[in-house]
């Protein structure tokens, strides 16, 4: 038993351990996503490639009926031939606990690069859709969505 670490918290021990291998700080993630974590999540998908605005259309209400179930459709302009098609559509948000919403993988057999689903929004926020094309390029669009709480909530029984 090492006297130095007796009484130390586990986090301190980890930091102390890391200090010996290049002093990388461990960052404790906040409980909710932030615009930064959305950007990081997008980076994880696109890597270092640039993301251009365009080709992507987001169909989502500006003021939702209810944040627990929001209709969402994403369409990407593309001829959808075997040489020029949409490989994937990723949707991100900035204020839910996690930044990812859905990642859909398409291909030339899709015929049309349009997907729709229903998702949850914790608060008024911006959502971003990123499309990956067959030529390796990335395109995106964003939409601002207003979310209010339902007027009459259930009490916890």
């Amino acid at each position: 038993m090492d006297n130095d670490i007796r009484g130390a918290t586990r986090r301190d021990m980890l930091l102390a351990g890391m200090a010996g291998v290049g002093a990388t700080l461990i960052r404790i993630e906040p409980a909710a996503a932030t615009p930064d974590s959305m950007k990081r999540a997008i980076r994880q998908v696109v890597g270092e490639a640039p993301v251009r605005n365009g080709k992507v259309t987001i169909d989502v209400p500006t003021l939702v009926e209810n944040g627990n179930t929001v209709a969402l459709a994403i369409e990407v302009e593309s001829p959808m031939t075997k040489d020029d098609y949409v490989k994937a559509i990723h949707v991100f948000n900035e204020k839910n606990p996690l930044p990812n919403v859905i990642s859909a993988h398409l291909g030339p057999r899709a015929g049309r690069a349009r997907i729709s689903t229903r998702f949850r929004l914790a608060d008024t926020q911006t959502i971003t859709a990123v499309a990956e094309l067959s030529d390796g390029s990335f395109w995106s669009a964003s939409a601002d969505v207003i979310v209010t709480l339902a007027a009459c909530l259930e009490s916890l029984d």
Partner: protein
Amino acid sequence: MARALINVPQKAKSGQVIEIKTLISHIMETGFRHDNVGKAIPRNIITTFVARYNGEEIFRTDLFPAIAANPFVSFHTVATESGTIEFEWTGDNGFHETGSAKITVE
């Protein structure tokens, strides 16, 4: 127990782009909710949905806790030949559900 609802046109012309709509019964528990004594309710979601057309994968999607309960997913595909379109959902706690629909392509 009814689990999946699939909407695929019964007939299509060869080369026609068709829309496929799917709905699956699932609570999609996010893992971020707490019960009335403060204990976290564990995550329980569908994580993957795959569609195959006569055995070939035509659509695959990863779902996250942000997807609403009873996930609705719709997508498109080109009607190439008659046959069967199969659907597969997998998720936490060994969740596994399948469905299929026949299509006649002229």
